[in-house]
């Protein structure tokens, strides 16, 4: 299957979502540094705490989530904005959450690393490797309930060295569960390069150990991701069991905002630009005469408007009442 066989509408959706994610992340970055100069103070500004942005890694989210329905679950990582957006999480509520406002997804209790949208079956976590076993559980639920929904567990290349990854792969394989394990390989576990932490060149090779399909795909090519993910999601939905996908991406920004990235060689920054999935896809759409400059510009303007609306919504929302901090520990009232 090549780009020619994918409907134009789908291609533009892929591009539009990727561009919306990039616009969102770069806009958030600007807001993050508000109130943090001249001295960078992580606790200051309208977005305090850590912020892990996904610029450069959009294809992994978009190429997978385009095959998903609302009832399919995506369990993301600490770097999850791209998956949240691709899964259809409300941009306004998500932004309000990141700005710590009462109108946020969790009323300001979760924050950027802990985005929950039950309606979209989306969640994420600040603990590396937490997603894999949780996705197994979603798969069990689907099987027990006789539904055909699937679960996507996202982890970085660093997370593939966690016990949870191996335990969950085995369990999903043994029980033939509808799970897609997605390793989003950006080459770095914060400052530790993959070749210093991982004994195999490609995490997809680890699928062999659990008797499931494993594919590695170049994240610079969103169409390649789209195709590989289509097969894995359809296989899961047909009840044929789990798959492992490795998407090779590059981080355009630091591990977190404020990361000086002194550990990162120059070539890696250059490769990140060269392998930018958004730039590559834009060029492809134009070169193949799939879309015109005007069509893309319209999509881009629309995205900028949507992102601005989300930011405005957050900024105009109230902060939660302080006492709210004590509520909600238990279901059914505290």
């Amino acid at each position, binding site marked *: 299957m090549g780009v020619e066989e994918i409907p134009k509408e789908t291609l533009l959706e892929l591009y539009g979502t990727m561009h919306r994610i990039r616009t969102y992340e770069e806009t958030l970055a600007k807001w993050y540094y508000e109130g943090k100069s001249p001295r960078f103070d992580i606790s200051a500004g309208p977005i305090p705490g*850590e912020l892990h942005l996904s610029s450069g890694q959009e294809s992994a989210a978009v190429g997978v989530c385009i095959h998903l329905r609302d009832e399919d679950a995506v369990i993301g990582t600490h770097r999850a904005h791209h998956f949240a957006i691709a899964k259809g999480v409300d941009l306004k509520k998500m932004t309000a959450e990141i700005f710590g*406002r009462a109108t946020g997804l969790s009323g*300001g*209790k979760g*924050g950027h690393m802990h985005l929950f949208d039950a309606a979209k079956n989306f969640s994420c976590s600040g603990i590396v490797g937490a997603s894999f076993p949780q996705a197994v559980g979603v798969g069990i639920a689907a099987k027990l309930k006789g539904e055909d929904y699937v679960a996507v567990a996202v982890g970085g290349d660093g997370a593939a060295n*966690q016990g949870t990854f191996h335990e969950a792969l085995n369990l999903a394989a043994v029980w033939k569960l509808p799970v897609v394990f997605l390793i989003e390989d950006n080459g770095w576990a914060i*400052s530790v390069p993959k070749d210093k932490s991982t004994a195999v060149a490609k995490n997809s090779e680890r699928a062999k150990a659990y008797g499931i399909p494993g594919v590695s795909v170049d994240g610079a090519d969103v169409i390649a991701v789209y195709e590989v993910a289509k097969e894995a999601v359809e296989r899961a939905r047909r009840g044929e069991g789990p798959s492992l996908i490795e998407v090779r991406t590059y981080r355009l920004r630091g591990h977190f905002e404020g990361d000086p990235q*002194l550990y990162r060689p120059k070539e890696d920054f250059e490769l990140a630009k060269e392998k930018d999935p958004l730039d590559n896809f834009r060029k492809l759409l134009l070169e193949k005469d799939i879309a015109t400059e005007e069509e893309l510009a319209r999509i881009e303007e629309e995205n900028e408007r949507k992102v601005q609306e989300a930011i405005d919504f957050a900024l105009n929302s109230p*902060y939660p009442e302080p006492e709210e*901090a004590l509520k909600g520990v238990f279901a059914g009232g505290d």
Partner: protein
Amino acid sequence: MARKLPMYKAIAEAIAQEMERDENVFVMGEDIGAYGGIFGATNGLLEKFGPERVRDTPISESAFIGAALGAASKGMRPIVELMFVDFFGVAMDQIYNHIAKAHYMSGEQVKMPIVITTAIGGGYSDAAQHSQCLYGLFAHVPGLKIVIPSNSYDAKGLMISSIRDDNPVMYFFHKGLMGLGWMPSPEEAAVEVPEEPYTVPIGEAKVVREGDDVTIATVSRMVYEALWAAEELEKDGISAEVIDLRTLVPLDKETLIDSVRKTGRLLVVDEDYMSYGMSGEIIATVVERIGSELKALPRRIAYPDVPVPYSRVLERFVLPDREKIVKTVKDMVG
């Protein structure tokens, strides 16, 4: 010669000096090499000692913390860093079933001279999975020494003691005391630190401010909140004694009881969760011995039993601080 050092440099200096003194000392952990530790506690060690003795690990905590046990059993003295205390869940078995118990279970055949270091504390909107203290959880397990320095002098001396100790020591440094620049930290935490190696004994509390009306017992960053509160209280003619417990296991009961016997009142301030933790333990320790001598019921200000919320307004509401201390002491003395 002494010079003022931020806590992170004091810790790194202590480790470096012990590595020079004893070739069995080595360091493992995530981002402790090229990055120098996310919170700087291993700053400069890789350059000095090379990658054999300063080992960046994959994100495989069960593996590298368990490996500390194996290395210790062969006479090494590993120092293992796990970035945030919140992350320990993934490796707890190796800590509480093995490292903590090996000496006892083996009938004292094996020693576990391991130092496990980690960052604690919130106050900068890093939310529920990156802001906890949890030292109470580890203090609960027999066999682990618990060290929690509040300034750079103690940090260096306690680190050297921890490395030389033949028992597993959990060494907790508060992010908000490290003096990192990008994370707010009280200036008072960066004190004069001698260049030469020295020890601060594990198991000795320190009276950091003398007073007659109330004893405020606390650790870590709350020492400063207590000191600032004591200054406020002074204006109202209330004289507060502040004790920096410095280590929870072993606990310096004598210093604590001598102080409460003098003041007749006890307030415990704890950034860890309220229930089943340090605050209850300290109060029980005092009441069991001199409960009948108290002039007021003992009180505690601890983290209410809720996960750490993200939004700044919510987090401030639940985090213990000087205002809460002042108010509570006035209630007790009034």
